[in-house]
């Protein structure tokens, strides 16, 4: 069932939501030298970092708490007076602190691995805070649960958060599968070299569709699936199921989707699989959407990636301009026929599809339209 997006706050390497969108429209990337771990040892030289001048210890908790506080303030909701549940999607939790502990740092209480304490302290009165660790599509999975909670009348509002800070163990895996350090994320590019991590946090507030307060967008539905196919390689069939699930739950036709804010990680496997799924689900049924993607500018923000896409989507719906795929120079052959945005493009999309796919084949696809 649809829900209303009444607040959306971001923190990426490019700034808050408005700053991130402005940078995307200008084609600007937030890439910089790797600031976490030893670039030589990791074979990773770049990252898309949030630099708030503070320590990186428990940075994810700090960033998500800050976004949550701002989002709740924006929508004028008092969690002490309403039933507000918080869901936090994350890929890596505070595993960076585990790495510090393992390499000589102090032990820390296990509850600081997740975000209940941090979010409760930032937003007093929440009914409960549940951390869902669903890799790179965690934000999309908590969106789906939020829609269900609202549909079933179990909450008056849901604070949906996503967050990740770079970990060395994930960087090691990224560096392990490339010969030379990747110089930039190039979604859907024929010469893409792989993914790089971006720090990021996001918080959105969803309310039922009949809520009267002003809304940024209407969330039509989120579809979920699991590939059950391979530990790390994506499956076109699994991604297609999530896309079709979203359309079915939302009662929409594939041809209605006129913008895709793609997952687009710039990896060898994701981008062709995502193109194939878009083609088979949307294009084959009469769709001809614009396709944009943000990770060339923000890096892969993992747990918050789906909510970053959602923030970009509502700004496209509201502002009539769709940003370019930053980093894309020459589209991959598998993308032939898809309309990737090369520059900021004047367009007033009506129904946007936000993609998020994660390690382990966990897929979440969200449809969003103007309020």
């Amino acid at each position, binding site marked *: 069932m649809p829900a209303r997006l009444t607040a959306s706050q971001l923190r990426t390497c490019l700034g808050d939501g408005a700053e991130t969108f402005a940078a995307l429209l200008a084609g600007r990337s937030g890439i910089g030298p790797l600031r976490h771990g030893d670039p030589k040892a990791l074979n990773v030289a770049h990252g898309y970092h949030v630099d708030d001048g503070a320590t990186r210890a428990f940075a994810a908790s700090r960033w998500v708490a800050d976004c949550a506080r701002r989002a709740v303030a924006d929508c004028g909701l008092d969690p002490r007076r309403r039933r507000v549940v918080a869901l936090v999607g994350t890929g890596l939790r505070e595993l960076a602190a585990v790495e510090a502990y393992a390499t000589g740092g102090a032990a820390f209480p*296990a509850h600081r691995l997740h975000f209940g304490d941090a979010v409760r302290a930032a937003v007093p009165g929440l009914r409960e805070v549940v951390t869902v660790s669903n890799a790179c599509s965690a934000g999309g999975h908590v969106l789906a649960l939020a829609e269900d909670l609202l549909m079933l009348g179990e909450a008056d509002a849901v604070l949906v958060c996503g967050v990740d800070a770079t970990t*060395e163990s994930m960087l090691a895996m990224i560096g392990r599968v490339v010969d030379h350090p990747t110089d930039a994320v190039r979604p859907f590019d024929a010469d893409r070299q792989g993914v790089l991590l971006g720090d990021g946090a996001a918080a959105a507030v969803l309310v039922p569709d009949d809520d009267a307060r002003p809304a940024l967008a209407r969330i039509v539905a989120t579809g979920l699936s699991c590939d059950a196919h391979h530990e790390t390689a994506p499956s076109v069939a699994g991604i297609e199921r999530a896309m079709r699930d979203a359309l079915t739950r939302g009662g929409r036709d594939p041809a209605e989707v006129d913008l895709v804010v793609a997952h687009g990680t710039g990896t060898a496997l994701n981008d062709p699989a995502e193109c194939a799924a878009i083609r088979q689900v949307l294009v084959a049924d009469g769709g001809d959407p614009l396709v944009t993607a943000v990770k060339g500018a923000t890096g892969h923000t993992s747990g918050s990636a789906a909510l970053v896409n959602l923030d970009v989507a509502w700004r496209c719906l509201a502002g009539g301009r769709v940003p370019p795929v930053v980093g894309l120079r020459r589209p991959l052959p598998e993308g032939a026929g898809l309309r990737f945005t090369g520059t900021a493009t004047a367009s007033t999309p009506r129904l946007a599809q936000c993609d998020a796919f994660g390690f382990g084949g966990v897929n979440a696809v969200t449809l969003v339209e103007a309020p």
Partner: protein
Amino acid sequence: MTRPLTATGPDRSAAPDTQAVRSAATANGGRAVPGAEKRVTVRVTGWSLHLPDADGLATDLADWSGVAPQRLAGALAGAVPADRAYEVLGRKGLLYKEPATRLALCAVHRALGLPPGRNLPTGVDPTTAVVVAGNLGNVATVADLARTVRAEGGRAVSPLAAPNASSNVVASTVALWFGFGGANLMICSGATAGLDAVRAATLLLRAGRAARVVVVGAEPADEVATGLHQAGRPPFPLRAGAACLVLTADPGSADAGTVDGPGAGGGAGLVLRPAGSPPAYRLLGLGGFDPAARWGDCYGAAGVVNLALAAALLDAGLAGPLAVACGDDTDGWRAAVLDIDGGRLTVLDDGRGAAVFDADGREAVRDGGRGAER
């Protein structure tokens, strides 16, 4: 469900008791969300306990419940430790699988009633979802990776360990191993994770996202996991174990097993008593028979373990309903209620707005993650 159960926060009073569950029929501007049901009866169609070396727990549980020890022994037997998981799962495919993943796979294998040996799914079942609860499953691998990178560089790490760098590896591995293609969730919310997972599962069933949900709780007890657990100064030590519940939904029924949302209208499914009323049910968890005190703390898995123990007791003939609880003062508390209804194990309440009372009628456990505010 009768509400209010007890005053648990100002937000409760803001929610009128008569607030209707948003009807699935009108949920989408008049278009029904396929399969969404505002009321379903959640059944437990399979369950298992995979707690290595828990013979003593069976004896204690028999003493507490009055159920004959031999009727419980079977439920708690056969739980090989992670390094002998091949005895349940077969030898193939276990390389680089985390201990928590192995225990989870064993628990699912046994809950599905499969014979020992590798299960090879014939295809992907998109109607079965997986929800796993656990917090510490991959911390040892992450620690190992960090040490290796520092000592020998990134080239020394094995790409085969890559999936373990992501915390959802237990949930996605269960899906891959058994061919479950529905929604796949890894709940890492600390001490409440087990019953948070049960609640997420009932949400998936009620929202029409799945016809069956495999709920698993699994934690390891390696050195890194134990170090982090102890740093939180828990009352009882961490212990490795897993449990599984297979949940399905009977649509549309409004019998005693109906699971309603808090604030839902209708009095069906009275399972928990208002504050001040006589005591409710026997409780598995803090304040009742607490497996964490008797055997060891399964932390994020505890809610699933306690619910599976309740299933074992009901199955062995103990009169229900049975309440189960999990949580701590930081993450908050959750409770759920299980009984046999119409001859079948039924989740009477999955913890939304639950309160459980001890034998003297005092509130023993309550929900809501309010520990930090008390």
